[in-house]
């Protein structure tokens, strides 16, 4: 890519992250000084249904991965007085994703305010923030912020004299990827083994403690207050017709300037990589991009340069926006090794409930590892595709698909690298055979993991 083709005018739109550079934004005082807790009293004077309608009109879609319309999700709750829960999914386990962490560390009050408003809208008196166990700083920041909010009367009984009660707690996860799946998270929060639950019933009808429950991502809940501030039309100023608003993207991998970038949806992936990310390192060429976290099908460099970062465009390209984790892979990386790495991850993280996923993730891991060790058979390549194809859409949750989709895309788009590896017993890119990864020897050990 020559310098002239790079669009340097493409800039971040700091909508949610406007004040993230201010250390004081973390505190209640600093947050209030910069526009915080102005929407909350406004919201408490509205009718809950008005807020739900507003969120519906804004076109806000879930930022955790699935991109489901938030207002519609809220609308699934039963229309009665049954107690209900609001859960914030801050498990952020998708490899490559680190936007929620930044949001919680830099602006915990933004999430807390968004959650109180959302809680009011759906009629929930209790909410939990389920935070990934490794995120100690996020947990500390949230706990301080919640304590400050209680003290200031934004949480607890009769919030700001409105008659609305709301309590909020932080729950620390124990590091399982599957607990980022909403029903897996609910199981974990209930004190059970973190395993997804059979649907139906869906959480909106029967979730946490068998009560109606809404689970939303950190970024989704934080955005609610901005929709109130700017109205649905104001929020729709950014993004596309179907993918409204801005989104935080976590840029990582073989890139000069990795980090979180907030851009309007529909932003060009090329601009993200070359403009904001500074491109690949000198002398290296872009080979592939995983656009939406490790579960999203990979794009070739060519496809990546044509893609736009919105739900529809990426779906059209056969992949997905997911959690917004853009993993850049340059030409010094071996795709066989990348896939084997991913497969090991999914094998390790499968909860083991559904047979196709439990056995399939292990099988895929073993096949890729044996290819990597130079023991692959040519038939293994077809077998990878067959196994992945039969894991897809056959299980309770999407972890099985998350493991299958990378296989299908890696093998079909970079088949030459796989075939070379099997034929020659070494990497096409690196020219060497990998030593058996340390984890592979674990397979023979009982009770490993």
């Amino acid at each position, binding site marked *: 890519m020559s310098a002239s083709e790079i669009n340097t005018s493409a800039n971040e739109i700091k909508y949610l992250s406007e004040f993230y550079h201010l250390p004081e934004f973390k505190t209640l005082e600093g947050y209030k000084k910069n526009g915080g807790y102005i929407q909350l009293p406004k919201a408490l004077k509205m009718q809950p249904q008005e807020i739900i309608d507003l969120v519906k009109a804004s076109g806000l879609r879930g930022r955790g991965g699935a991109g489901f319309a938030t207002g519609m999700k809220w609308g699934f709750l039963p229309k009665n007085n049954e107690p209900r829960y609001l859960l914030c999914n801050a498990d952020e386990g998708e490899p490559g994703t680190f936007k929620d962490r930044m949001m919680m560390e830099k602006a915990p009050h933004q999430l807390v305010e968004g959650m109180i408003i959302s809680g009011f809208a759906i009629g929930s008196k209790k909410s939990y923030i389920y935070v990934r166990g490794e995120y100690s700083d996020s947990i500390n920041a949230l706990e301080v912020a919640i304590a400050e909010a209680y003290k200031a009367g934004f949480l607890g009984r009769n919030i700001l004299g409105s008659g609305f009660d709301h309590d909020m707690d932080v729950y620390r996860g124990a590091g399982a990827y599957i607990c980022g799946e909403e029903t897996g998270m609910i199981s974990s929060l209930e004190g059970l083994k973190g395993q997804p639950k059979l649907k139906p019933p869906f959480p909106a009808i029967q979730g946490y403690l068998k009560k109606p429950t809404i689970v939303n991502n950190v970024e989704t809940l934080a955005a609610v207050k901005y929709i109130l501030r700017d109205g649905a039309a104001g929020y729709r100023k950014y993004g596309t017709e179907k993918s409204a608003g801005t989104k935080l993207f976590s840029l990582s991998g073989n890139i000069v300037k990795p980090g979180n970038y907030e851009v309007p949806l529909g932003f060009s992936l090329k601009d993200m990589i070359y403009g904001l990310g500074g491109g690949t390192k000198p002398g290296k060429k872009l080979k592939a991009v995983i656009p939406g976290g490790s579960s999203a099908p990979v794009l070739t460099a060519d496809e990546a340069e044509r893609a736009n970062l919105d739900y529809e465009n990426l779906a059209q390209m056969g992949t997905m926006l997911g959690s917004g984790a853009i993993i850049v892979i340059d030409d010094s990386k071996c795709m066989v090794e990348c896939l084997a790495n991913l497969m090991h991850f999914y*094998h390790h993280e499968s909860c083991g409930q559904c047979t*196709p996923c439990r056995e399939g993730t292990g099988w895929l891991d073993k096949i890729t590892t044996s290819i990597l060790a130079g023991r692959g058979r040519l038939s293994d390549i077809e077998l990878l595709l067959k196994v992945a194809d039969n894991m897809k859409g*056959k299980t309770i949750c999407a972890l099985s698909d998350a493991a299958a989709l990378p296989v299908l895309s890696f093998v079909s788009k970079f088949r030459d690298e796989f075939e070379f590896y099997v034929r020659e017993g070494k990497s096409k890119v690196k020219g060497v055979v990998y030593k058996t990864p340390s984890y592979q020897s674990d397979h023979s050990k009982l009770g*490993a*993991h």
Partner: protein
Amino acid sequence: MSEIITENKTEKKMLNCKINGVALFVKEGSTIIQAMYENQQKIAHYCWHPGLSIAGVCRLCMVEVTGNPRLQIACNTQVIEGMDINNTSAKVIEATKWGLDFHLINHPLDCPVCDQAGECGLQDQYMEFGQYNSEMAEPKTKKHKVVDLGPTVVLDSERCILCSRCVRFTDEVSKTNELGIFNRGDHAEIGTHAGKKLDNKYSLNTVDICPVGALTSKDFRFRQRAWYLKDAETICNGCSTGCSTKVYFNKEGLFRVKPKHNAAVNGYWMCDEGRNTYKFVNKESRLLKSYQFKNNSWGFESMAGAATRNLINIFKTAKADEMALVLTGQQTVEEYEAIVSFFADHLKSKNIFHWNNNESTVNDFDGLLIRGDKNPNTKGLLQVLSKHQISTKWTDLENQLASGKIKNLVVVGPENISVYNDLELKLNLFSKAEHLIYLSSASLPQWENIKTLKYVTVIPLKTYIEKSGTFINYAGLAQKFNKVTTVVSEALTVSEFAQLAKGEELKIEYVVSENLMTSEHQRADQVVLEHRKKNEFVFNRGQF
């Protein structure tokens, strides 16, 4: 066999649907798998069990619903009006084949040494959908074998397909919560929670519902191959609940008892105690011939029929009030009717007594199946007695025996002597009679301990496995059952005894018994359950 099916009384809307082209009319709220199960349609499944909650994890019961591009699992999809369902399309068959393959890739395929072979869900589905060569070329995941879960059950984790039926059983039915699934992914294994054993009164149901050979019964494993066994239905005689059961037997004897579904009585389950009721039927614990104790020694071996005919004179000459009859709740209604009418109508004796072995616990109930009355037919006995207007007190018998008023005492002894703790005490009492005629299916080593024996005739009886009849359970439900097999062909039923004693002709068929089941023929379980292997992975959790 009882054919009592209780219909759900609450009226439910019926829905029209079509499954594999067959138009069906199913209850609203039914899942597809229920509809198929109730209409004898074949569908592959492992985790679903009609008596347990829905887990939806084996992913084998895939069906295609017209209008839905994604295959659905039949166990968690409710039938809606007009649904068109099939599980025979190429798409479903391919999905099922792969679903089976995922179950098999880490399965040890040790069918030749597996107890489940012949009645294994994996084998059945493989014959139905598989018959291919596995593409799995990688080393299989190793898991624990010969895990001693408790006093009754052994686990082989490599055979386990993690359907979670056993876990759900201990959570939902026995409510003892001993089992859980530990670890994640393909390292997940069934195990008992730290410090717990699978030790409850219903533990062997987990073996029944295990679709593979992961859970095996310590009592049954390595005793017989499933295909060398015949089975027949009967009623459990372990207590007054009267569960429907299936007994498994061959010419070597009886080997196991399993529950048979009976919505009115036991659902899908039975207790572990009831599974032992085959043991007293086998020849090793039976009275095979008639003997007499006379002149201070046992002797005069004879066939049961001949021995009974020899008693005819006694019944002809004895005075009615010098005779007495003792009955337990272990015989059939038909037999009670025969012997009671023989005594009451023929001999004109109303001295008929009910030997109640568990007066203090008779109304106990554990909330699931086990009842304190360890007799299958106490209700039946009481009904026959009241029909003949017999109301006697046990103390009358004791007094009359003490005073020597009763000279000839006929006792129909219990089959299941393990639940008669007062047996020796009662034998002591009975031996006060001048002539004790003791009818029993069990050989009683207890006679050795009775020092006051005068004159005793013992006559072998048939057990519940060897006769047809009716038991009336605690709730008054009369359940008919048929003869399963013959173990001791020389033995009599109580009705036959009554007929012979009356002097009627009775052709007794002597079949040369092939039943060889004696303790010498039984092999001990030769697999040593090393302590080291006991739930190791549970106790070492987190140390890897």
